[in-house]
């Protein structure tokens, strides 16, 4: 079993490498490059998926496959790989999304034929999946950081793929800067850990926090929190996310939003639960608070967007927040000595991680299909697409219901688990700190309800009613591979929603590894049909039961139909137009209009900018032209990043004076530096 997993993992890594090479080889033959690269990526991802599932299904006590990819470079720089349960879970996530997105790309990349080099796209895509896989299976700090950097660089290249647009270039540079900030923080964090352990292998770092001075341990935590937080996109370090995700090709955005930001979560769990030891209380409180703030602000800013892909990018911030709520609660329970509850919080966070990957991947792929069909990301120019692209619309609706945490799909299950963890938290402490749990729960409810509002808008404005532009009126259904990719993720959303207890069983080895507990037995009742909270206390829910019960109740409306309405007819008619002659698409509700009440309710936060210019001949009531401009600028952009940018530019202008172009001055600098270094050395 383990040997098979290891072989499949190696095969998938080799496959991605082959795909990368093939893409570069077939630069001039786009059809071949498309088929080879994405076909290779799909096969490799399938192999990774099977490897992860085999390992996780092996249950607790399954020894982790451990091997070296290449001979070590130096005594401490090993290219060691270990597929332990945590790695296997994230490998599952990477591979699942990798598979669906590769299949989708087979159709999607055709849109670039004759316009862009598909070989480059395919090569970098393979390299990105390879790097991400390396990050989650690395067993050595060096390999981890190499994978991390490779991932950041390839993602930068992919974000800038359509670099003709100035917006894309700006977003690319922003992403580049932020991803190096996070890499810097992580390197510093690891060097603090290295001081204590003296070795770079992950095995030597296990529980290393117990041997560190509290101050250093806290510093390491803050550095990791910053580093992984930037990657995951927590508020206020999220600004790269709504800039970079929309401009990338849609298959890449799906991968970035579904998987790439989850490497931040992986790193966080690896460090927080494996390396740093029992945490002090404030870590958990910080994580829970940051998570709550990210969730609420993410969804609020998402509501203000009418660029479909930016909207989805903001929702990634929201969902990362929800994941961190579960993990933060888990850290707090570890502090207060409640390992069972900690495990519940951890399961909630992990479950939401894979859920978010599947529905956000699905939604980005759907947005890509829409973008492909209409040529625009602006929702105000869409509408009526459900008639022209019915299957894409259906898949998007599945994703929308799932992300809005509505039963019986997967988003509901993980939020239910998060609520249960938060509810259980109230009894774990006597201090006022316990209030944080129900209040976070209330904010989670706000987030869920706002997400539902946002996806009524996203789906309703994009797919329903009349087309608002020519592009939308002449849209076409997505190609078959694209629909297949979306269908795969939609099926994952349904399966994760309907079979939660079965999936939680796969998490047993993982929780055993991190908290020493297994909850699958406690969380399941009635042969796995019912999901329960800890030991039956706290409540039960059964998504399959609800779905079945809904089917059982279906005879009531049909019976009523048979009893009363068999003879009635259904007529198609125009929508009520108050006696005018016909409704035009311009009379429909717009995306901006839809979110206006929320903009007004939260205007203290949004501070919306609104400008109306009207020109008129004789009376202001009869304007000849009206120009209306309304936008919302993020408070962080305004209050933190812009002043920060100005400060940095000013400082660098000062520092530039050092570079006078005189070789004497440079020699002097070198001399002074040398002197200083010698002084420090002695």
């Amino acid at each position, binding site marked *: 079993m383990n040997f098979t997993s290891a072989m499949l993992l190696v095969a998938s890594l080799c496959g991605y490498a082959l795909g990368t090479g093939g893409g570069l080889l077939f630069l001039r033959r786009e059809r071949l490059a498309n088929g080879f690269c994405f076909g290779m990526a799909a096969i490799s991802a399938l192999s990774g998926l099977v490897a992860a599932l085999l390992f996780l299904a092996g249950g607790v006590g399954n020894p982790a496959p451990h091997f070296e990819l290449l001979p070590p470079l130096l005594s401490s720089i090993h290219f060691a790989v270990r597929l332990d349960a945590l790695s296997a879970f994230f490998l599952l996530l990477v591979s699942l999304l990798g598979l669906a997105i590769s299949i989708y790309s087979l159709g999607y990349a055709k849109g670039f034929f004759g316009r862009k080099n598909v070989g480059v796209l395919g090569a970098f895509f393979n390299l990105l999946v390879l790097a991400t896989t390396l990050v989650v299976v690395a067993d050595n700090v060096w390999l981890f950081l190499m994978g991390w950097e490779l991932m950041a660089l390839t993602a930068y290249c992919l974000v800038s793929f359509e670099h003709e647009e100035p917006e894309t270039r700006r977003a690319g540079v922003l992403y580049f800067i932020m991803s190096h900030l996070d890499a810097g923080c992580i390197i510093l964090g690891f060097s603090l850990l290295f001081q204590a352990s003296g070795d770079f292998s992950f095995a030597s770092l296990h529980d290393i926090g117990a041997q560190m001075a509290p101050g250093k341990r806290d510093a390491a935590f803050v550095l990791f929190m910053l580093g992984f937080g930037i990657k995951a996109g927590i508020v206020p370090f999220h600004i790269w996310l709504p800039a970079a995700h929309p401009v990338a090709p849609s298959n890449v955005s799906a991968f970035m939003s579904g998987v790439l930001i989850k490497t931040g979560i992986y790193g966080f769990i690896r460090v927080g639960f494996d390396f740093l030891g029992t945490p002090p209380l404030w870590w958990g409180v910080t994580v829970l608070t940051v998570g709550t703030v990210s969730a609420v602000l993410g969804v609020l800013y998402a509501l203000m967007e009418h660029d479909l892909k930016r909207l989805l990018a903001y929702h990634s911030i929201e969902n990362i927040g929800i994941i961190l709520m579960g993990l933060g609660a888990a850290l707090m329970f570890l502090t207060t000595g409640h390992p069972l509850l900690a495990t519940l919080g951890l399961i909630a966070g992990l479950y939401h991680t894979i859920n978010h990957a599947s529905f956000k991947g699905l939604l980005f792929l759907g947005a890509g299909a829409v973008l492909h069909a209409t040529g625009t990301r602006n929702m105000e120019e869409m509408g009526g697409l459900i008639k022209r692209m019915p299957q894409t619309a259906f898949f998007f609706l599945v994703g929308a219901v799932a992300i809005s945490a509505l039963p019986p799909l997967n988003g509901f299950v993980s939020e239910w688990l998060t609520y249960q963890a938060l*509810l259980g938290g109230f*009894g774990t402490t006597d201090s006022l700190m316990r209030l944080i749990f129900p209040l976070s729960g209330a904010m989670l409810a706000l987030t869920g309800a706002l997400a*539902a509002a946002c996806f009524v808008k996203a789906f309703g404005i994009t797919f329903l009613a009349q087309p608002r532009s020519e592009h939308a009126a002449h849209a076409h259904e997505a190609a078959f591979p694209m629909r297949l990719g979306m269908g795969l993720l939609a099926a994952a959303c349904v399966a994760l929603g309907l079979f939660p207890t079965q999936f939680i069983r796969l998490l047993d080895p993982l929780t055993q590894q991190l908290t020493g507990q297994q909850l699958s037995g406690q969380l399941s009742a009635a042969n796995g049909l019912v999901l329960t909270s800890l030991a039956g*206390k706290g409540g039960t829910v059964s998504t399959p039961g609800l779905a079945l019960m809904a089917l059982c109740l279906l005879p009531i409306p049909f019976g009523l139909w048979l009893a009363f309405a068999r003879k*009635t007819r259904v007529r198609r008619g125009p*929508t009520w137009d108050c006696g005018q002659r016909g409704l035009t698409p311009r009379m429909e509700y717009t995306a901006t209009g839809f979110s*206006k*009440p929320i903009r007004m309710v939260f205007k203290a936060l949004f501070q919306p900018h609104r400008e109306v210019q009207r020109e008129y001949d004789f009376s202001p009531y009869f304007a000849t032209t009206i120009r209306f401009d309304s936008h919302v600028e993020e408070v962080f952009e305004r209050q933190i990043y812009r002043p920060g940018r100005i400060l940095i530019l000013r400082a660098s202008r000062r520092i530039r004076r050092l570079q006078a172009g005189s070789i004497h001055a440079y020699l002097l600098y070198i001399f002074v530096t040398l002197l200083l270094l010698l002084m420090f050395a002695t």
Partner: protein
Amino acid sequence: MNLNLPAILAQTALLLLLAPLLSGLIKNWKAKLQNRRGAPVWQPYFDLAKFLRKDMVISEHASWVFSFAPYVVFLTALLVGLMVPMVTAQAPLDLFGGALALVGLLALGRFFLALGGLDPASAFGGMGSSREMTISAIAEPAMILAIFTVAITAGSTSLNEMVLAGQSSGWKFLDPSHALAFAALFVVLLAETGRLPVDNPATHLELTMIHEAMLLEYSGRYLAFMEWGAAIKQLVLMALLANLFFPLGLAADATPAALGLGLLWFVGKLLVLAGAVVLVETTNAKLRLFRVPDLLSAAFILATLALVSTFLFK
């Protein structure tokens, strides 16, 4: 797992039959209080029968989502109804979900209701959807927090457990946390069921309406399912309030006498709550849309205070 089939059937029948009566009763009482004669309390039944027999006109812009929504609204309302203890302290579908599933299922119904409002390309429907989603978004935290307050005392989100916990510790409505949570949930009830001062169920005037605006394009049996679903939802939320905070007179066993007495108690509690709703509706004017968030944040603060007082007054 044992599902009590007779209980499921009985509660489904109760929901289907009692819900229209409750709406009719509220309308009739409201009319009486405003010195009008009002429609008979049975009127909603006649309306539903009439809608079911009518032909339907469906907008030419609408898609399958429009036709799917009435079923979702109707079925989620019924499902939710089966999770709330009514005559006994044992809701038949308690195992399948408690308070959180209740909130989730109501949200699912609302999600499709709002999509159904947007689908026919009418500005009215869009306006209704937009307002409904906004108001429910602000009502939701107050609702969850109030439910959490009760759930923390009971140690469970199962509605059965919550009602039993209320029963076992005796009637403690004067407990501040209970009273405050009740007040918060009552405001949420007004908002969720589209009652004054949040929404006006009696008018089709486009500037004031929310729920009715989304239903504007529905006709025939779809309208019947929508209206019936809304009535069931109202009954369920009122039953939730009644049994969560006044767990009195619930039938302890399944003998006909006990069940009959339990039913009487249940109807009595509903009548008192309906009276309260009627009083609020008659004595209050509709709030401007952008004043509604103030009301709902007041409910949120009440719920927070309820939570704080669970351990301040212990």
